[in-house]
């Protein structure tokens, strides 16, 4: 609405619109709505987890610490094919292969180390593995006092 058109409006209407603008400018209805909303929120259940007692449960597919799986006979599934080490973008996996004592595979890992400080938890190793031998668990609490502790060897990974 341009200026001249506003002047042509009847006086009563102009006064009423001015009063309305004044009332809105006092913010009162909006403030009351807001107060009602925040009051509702005080009664709702809280999002807070009381951490040391309650723990966050990660969603399915969360990528935490790694685990090396075992087969039905308790042997590591890994056949030391180096697929995960090759796929790893952070180069945190170190594998040393040795000769297999069992007839169903040629190689087994003698050494299998993951440096969790280098790992970016992308899950590429899990995707690359042809034997379904490595996977990422839901464990997200990682505490250590030295860097060396964060380099997990095969025994530690099998335990996970």
């Amino acid at each position, binding site marked *: 609405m341009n200026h001249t058109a506003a002047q042509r409006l009847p006086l009563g209407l102009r006064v009423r619109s001015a009063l309305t603008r004044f009332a809105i400018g*006092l913010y*009162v209805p909006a*403030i009351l709505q807001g107060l009602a909303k*925040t009051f509702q*929120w*005080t009664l709702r259940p*809280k*999002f*807070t987890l009381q951490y040391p007692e309650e723990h966050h449960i990660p969603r399915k597919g969360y990528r935490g610490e790694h685990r090396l799986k075992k087969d039905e006979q308790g042997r590591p599934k890994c056949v030391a094919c180096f697929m995960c080490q090759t796929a790893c973008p952070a180069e945190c996996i170190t594998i040393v292969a040795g000769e297999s004592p069992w007839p169903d595979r040629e190689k087994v890992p003698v050494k299998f180390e993951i440096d969790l400080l280098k790992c970016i938890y992308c899950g590429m190793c899990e995707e690359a593995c042809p034997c379904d031998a490595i996977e990422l668990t839901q464990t997200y609490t990682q505490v250590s006092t030295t860097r060396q502790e964060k380099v997990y060897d095969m025994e530690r990974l099998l335990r996970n």
Partner: protein
Amino acid sequence: MTWLWLLGKIGAVLGIIFVVGPGLILAERRLSAFIQGRLGPNRVGPFGVLQPVADIIKLIMKEVIVPQGTDRTLFLLGPFLVFVPPLLGWAVIPFGNQIGEEHLQVANLNIGVLFLMSVLSVGVYGITLGGWASNNKYSLLGSLRAAAQLISYELTLGLAILSVVMFAGSVDPQRIVELQARNGWNIFGGGSLWLLPSGLLGFVLLYTCALAENNRLPFDMAECEAELVGGYHTEYSSMGFGVYMFAEYVAMTLSAALVITLFLGGWHFPYLTNPDDHSVAAGVISVAVFVTKLVLLTLTYIWVRWTLPRFRYDQIMSLGWRRLLPLALGNIGAVALIGVFVQGSP
């Protein structure tokens, strides 16, 4: 005997302030948490009731840093200039019905309301001095922002108070409360149907100005703690900051007490208190009524703070000068006209 009464009354007032004040700090943190879907501090003591104590211990243990190039005396004086005026103001608040011959009011001033207004104005000096003495341009700017806001809203505050003074025909807080106890609360027009709109409007005006005077959100110009450095108390550490912080809550209790005294019937609640009953039991009940009102009203301050975002600076000025001030003036005019033409009393 008079001395004992005086000491007792001072003790009672200080007791109210130093229980409600830290209680408010806790309430602020927990209520804000509830409003945001959190739990808030609940570890120190049952339900976190000792959290204010822990806060204060933490602040005391910190180093007092006086920055280079500051005016040392003024810098250290600043927090106390903010802290003392609200305590002074409490002297004239009638916090209970009279027991025997004794009025439950520390200083029985017959110009109590004027005294309160002057005391409320003094708080600006502490803030300005603190900002100026810090030798920091951000503090100075923050204190100027705060001072401009406080002075703007003091005008409307005074006018809103004036409407109550016109209802009662007196500036004696005791008399104002007693009239409310006999005739009806001022928020409802002091028993007169004609004055009902004026009473409600006056209450809203005084409440709004009380928020502004305390630098509470949505009038958070003094600190802007949500997004800026911290306004006038940027350079303060340890208990200097602590005193500023606590002063804010003491000022909240004072302004709530003021609103209660002027508009919400002071220590009176229908069927619970009787202005003619001067027994000890009735006195205790009236004090309890007053404290309950105080707690509830200060809780609404916190509720409002965590509901509303901060106004922009020009919006604060526009609201204060272009909306609240005309409303307050109009309110006074209406009260005067009704007083003269309807009730026939000048």
